[in-house]
């Protein structure tokens, strides 16, 4: 493996001792070896193990599994839980659309009118990240409770019927998802808008574009990569989220993440849970591959 690399090595500084040249040729591999091994053993191999587990038959009591090439696990799990997959799609899709619509104007405003306070406004966008994800969701549960600070006061003022509630509905779950993932949408949009060369806009105005035309025919098309990155960074995590659903959604409106978590941690149904995770990963991979093909996998780094 290393031999041809050694032969191709240009040897810029001139002939050196063989040991040094070998070390130089190996340098990229030695540098990436520890991280590569870690990711191989604790990221790629677990995915393979997951696929293998989904074909095994497990004892629910002990969690012991035997390989039986039980392909029927997939259709069985899907027929049991396709409704939860659909719910996840609806909720994650709704939250992503809300986030795109809500965060585009603010991303636009910060990019074009933020002035020297851009860093401050970006910090304000990131403010939710300074509180733990679980606590953020728990605080929303606290705020939206039936007798909580908002609904309780409105009910006391007889502005709402006593049995009105937000928690344990799909609306609460979508609202929670939208809040928690808003920064993941707003930042890529900001990066994309900020990157637009303002001289292109001037050129559009010079060519008698109206403000509306400049927006729809210059700004919007140039932000498409950011919209796609925002979609990937919002929709995919929201699809597998179960914290919002469990804390805000109560026992109804079950999303697929809850099913997977229960399969692994409550029912010890490793085969079923693995099959569902594999399906979820496959769905996410569609979006991930589409992104990598259209924009290149490295571009995501610019939006993080």
């Amino acid at each position, binding site marked *: 493996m290393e031999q041809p*690399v050694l032969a191709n090595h240009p040897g810029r500084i001139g002939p050196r001792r063989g040991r040094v040249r070998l070390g130089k*040729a190996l*340098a*990229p*591999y030695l*540098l*990436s070896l*520890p*991280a590569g091994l*870690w990711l191989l053993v*604790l*990221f*790629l191999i*677990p995915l393979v193990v997951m696929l293998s587990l989904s074909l095994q038959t497990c004892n629910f009591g002990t*969690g012991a*599994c035997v390989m039986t090439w039980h392909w029927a696990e997939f259709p069985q799990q899907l027929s049991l839980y396709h409704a939860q997959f659909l719910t996840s799609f609806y909720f994650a899709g709704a939250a992503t659309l809300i986030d795109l619509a809500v*965060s585009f104007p*603010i991303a636009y*405003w910060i990019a074009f*009118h933020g002035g020297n306070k851009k*860093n*401050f406004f970006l*910090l*304000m966008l990131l403010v*939710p*990240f*300074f*509180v*733990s*994800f*679980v*606590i*953020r969701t*728990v*605080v929303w549960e*606290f*705020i939206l409770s039936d007798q*909580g600070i908002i609904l309780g006061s409105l009910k006391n003022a007889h502005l709402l019927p006593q049995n009105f509630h937000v928690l344990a509905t799909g609306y609460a779950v979508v609202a929670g998802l939208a*809040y928690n993932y808003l920064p993941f949408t707003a930042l890529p949009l900001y990066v994309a808008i900020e990157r637009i*060369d303002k*001289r292109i806009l001037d050129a559009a105005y*010079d060519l008698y574009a109206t403000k509306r035309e400049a927006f729809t025919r210059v700004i919007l098309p140039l932000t498409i990569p950011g919209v796609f990155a925002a979609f990937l960074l919002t929709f*995919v*995590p929201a*699809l*597998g989220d179960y914290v919002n659903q469990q*804390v805000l959604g109560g026992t109804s409106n079950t999303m697929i993440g809850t099913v*997977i*978590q229960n399969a*692994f*941690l409550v029912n010890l149904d*490793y085969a079923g849970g*693995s099959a569902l995770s594999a399906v*979820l990963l496959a769905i996410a991979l569609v979006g*991930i591959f589409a*992104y*990598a093909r259209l924009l290149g996998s*490295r571009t*995501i780094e610019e939006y*993080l």
Partner: protein
Amino acid sequence: MSAVVTAPASQDVAPARPPRRRRWTRFILPAYSWLIIAYLVFPIAVMVLYSFNKVTTGLPQVSFAWNGFTLQWYQQWNNIPQLTSAFWLSIRLAIVSSLFATVLGTLLALALVRYRPPRFRGKTAVEQIMFLNIAAPEIVLGASLLGLFVTMNLARGFVTLLLAHVAFSIAYVAVTVRARMAGFDRTLEEAAADLGANAWVTFRKITFPLIMPGIIAGALMAFALSIDDFVTSNFVSGSAVPFPVWVYGATRIGIPPQVFVFGSAIFAVGILCALTSIVVARKQT
């Protein structure tokens, strides 16, 4: 600069757009943006406010009604032993895992920045694996790690948490460090080598100080990812319960005010760090 100069000129040239008075609509975007910021800050303000709220029911739960200001929960911040130990576990875990992830991620970033395919075969594959690691749903990563540990019969606890946290942090650290190394001037290293420094001295005296800001940014990223993580931790924690997992479990019975105290404290420390970095960055430019 030229954009600034030409902008007013273009308005003079365009006769189709008469100079009109700026209307009230110019307030819409700023007002809207401040509204969104208020919405983002609102739950945090509620958390901080209610960490000072008296509890009258006798139950260890935050009450919805405002019963008056108290510092009781800050004085009794460590009154719930499980919560306190979960918090310290999270801190220890975040420190150790961010150390591992920073070293591994920085080395990987060095390899990715300096070498291209003829000398670094498989670079594209490594980049795609990193992308997949970042973009895949976290629940899949957590579930697959649990599957691995169960298959290997590895008891779940601090070690499995550490293995998992490093695994999901490496790619983020590598991306962060690499982004900061983009403008790195390689000729400085060549100059050091010309002046007789060996590879190690060059790295210690030239490369390392120059990429230090990137490494710190990567380490902070890894620390924040680790201390905030719930989904993966919930799968692989077992007997060792980190802070977010404990809070999640506590939601079933009611939130003790101490949770809000810890949340407010973490928030204050995080914001202080962020403001400091902004101020430092402003002073340097």
